[in-house]
């Protein structure tokens, strides 16, 4: 078994008296899609914030390529190759595709800050990187506000990959999208997976989406891992049961019927 790119061991995160994560283990392998599932409040968001350097864990260790690593800031995590695509995508609608793609990391000639941007080169890179994972934008100078939700998602993913993400954390990328665009995002995930050098952590509420693209699953409930495994080790019904936080679907149906 290959070394996981990132390994979380026994991560505990407390906010005062509240324990958000209670000893979570997670292995993330390059070239795999790892679905992270769980109900609202299960601790998914806290877990990705720990991985992306926003929160420091109260206990436990993060290993990157086998080495114990401490992230003091989101920047440290980015340097370690962990790219997070949040739900709001960190994209500015009034700015052009290229200006968004290189926001904060512009290519320039001259001193930092006052250097003149290499617009032509940046336009080309933005176009090519987005084409690689599936969309051909006709005009990189168009404002992002004119693009669809799926296209924006692709922009954010392409940007994270271009700037060296080896682990791509996608926080509910398919929510708030139409059916067709959801499929577009899943296709993008598959294309990223096919590159083989990038690990994807795919956070979702949607079991069908996770079954379409995931290689490995981790289920969280109340801050703990209640189930984990590879795709072929888990039954469909088992996935559904774990999705619901471990409760039997039949019990839920019964409860609903009783009302």
């Amino acid at each position, binding site marked *: 078994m290959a070394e996981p790119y990132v390994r979380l061991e026994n991560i505990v995160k407390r906010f005062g008296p509240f324990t958000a994560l209670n000893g979570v283990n997670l292995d993330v392998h390059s070239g795999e899609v790892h679905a992270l599932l769980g109900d609202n409040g299960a601790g998914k968001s806290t877990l990705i914030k720990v991985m992306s350097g926003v929160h420091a864990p109260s206990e436990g260790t993060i290993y990157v390529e086998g080495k114990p690593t401490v992230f003091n800031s989101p920047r440290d995590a980015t340097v370690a190759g962990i790219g997070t695509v949040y739900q709001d*995508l960190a994209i*500015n609608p009034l*700015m052009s595709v290229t200006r968004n793609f290189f926001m904060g990391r*512009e290519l320039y000639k001259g001193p930092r*800050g006052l250097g003149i941007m290499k617009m032509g080169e940046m336009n080309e890179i933005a176009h090519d990187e987005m084409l690689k994972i599936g969309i*051909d934008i*006709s005009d990189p100078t168009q404002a992002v506000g004119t693009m669809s939700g799926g*296209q924006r998602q692709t922009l954010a993913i392409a940007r994270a990959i271009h700037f060296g993400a080896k682990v791509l954390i996608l926080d509910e990328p398919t929510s708030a999208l139409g059916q067709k665009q959801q499929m577009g995002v899943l296709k993008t995930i598959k294309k990223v997976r096919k590159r083989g050098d990038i690990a994807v952590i795919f956070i979702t509420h949607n079991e069908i989406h996770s079954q379409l693209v995931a290689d490995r699953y981790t289920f969280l409930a109340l801050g703990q891992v209640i189930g984990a495994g590879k795709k072929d080790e888990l039954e469909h019904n088992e996935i559904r049961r774990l999705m619901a936080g471990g409760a039997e679907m039949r019990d839920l149906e019964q409860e609903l019927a009783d009302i």
Partner: protein
Amino acid sequence: MSDRNESDRLQQESTFQRLIRRPEAGSFAVMVVVLVLIAFASNGNAMNALGIKNNLSIISQFGIIATGAALLMIAGEFDLSIGSMIGFAGMSMAMMLKWGLPFGLGEATPFSAFFITLAMTLSLGWLIGTIVVRSGLSSFIVSLGFLFGLRGVTEVTFRLINQSTQISGLQDFKETSFFARLFGGESFGWFYDLAFALGFNLNRRGEQWVTGLDARVVWWMLVVLIAYIILSRTQIGNWIYATGDNKESARANGVPVNRVKVGLFMTTALCATIFAACQVFDTNTADAAKGNLKELEAIAIAVVGGILMTGGFGSVIGVAFGAVTFGLVANAVFYIPWIDGSFYRVFVGAVLLAAVFANERIRKRITGGI
């Protein structure tokens, strides 16, 4: 159908369509209309040799401060202290030139008076910016505090040292100091000489009428040129847009949002100081009331120039067109005898409202609202 992808839905536009969607388009159209109307209504007097000089004088004043205000607005903040900063800077320079340097350091030269003042105004700009970014309060309120506070400090200092809130009759430093000429002197003399040589620019006795434009015209052009290059070509320009559009997104991508904002508050202070220096060295006077309401005119010009109130969008060139429009209308009363000067304010109010609606429309079109 299967060949059709999502990018096909974005219609390719003609060059003309692209031009009219640029942020400068609206303010350019307004400027042309105003230019033509005033030229006709004044029988061409507004555009003769003296008219051009006088118009450009006030246009440059507007333009210098509006450019600074516009950059700050693109980054999503306001500075209401510009007017008081002009009064403060003018007071500071004139006071040093009249009463000598502070702490008994001897006589002031235009050079030392300007740079000591600039150090103070830049510090004040830094302070306003730092309070805004540290506290997270609205820049509207923080700079409003400085609007009152700075004006008060200016008046108090005047009375304490000078016993009067104005200084007049300073010696004409332009005659002795090259540095004073840079701000208060004339520019484009060659243009007027050339016009004279070609048979224009004559007064009633057939001599050369106007010798040149104010030096501040050059300052305005410099400010516009530098601001244009910074905003549309440099890395900082991208940071300014990013900061104003959505500062959390910008921050998440590594844009130094706070430094951008503080730097831009210092830029408006710099523009106010240039404005004041041109005034002091041109007229050799200073007055505690100088610059009153200029901050609001600067914001109005920026909005008419196509800057969004919400930030993240706009162009320096559009603001230059806006400054031309406002300057022409502010001066119109001198060339059109039958018009009441207060129509200037009526015009400002009407154009401002129209511009806000137009800008909102542009914003919605970009973000997909229309």
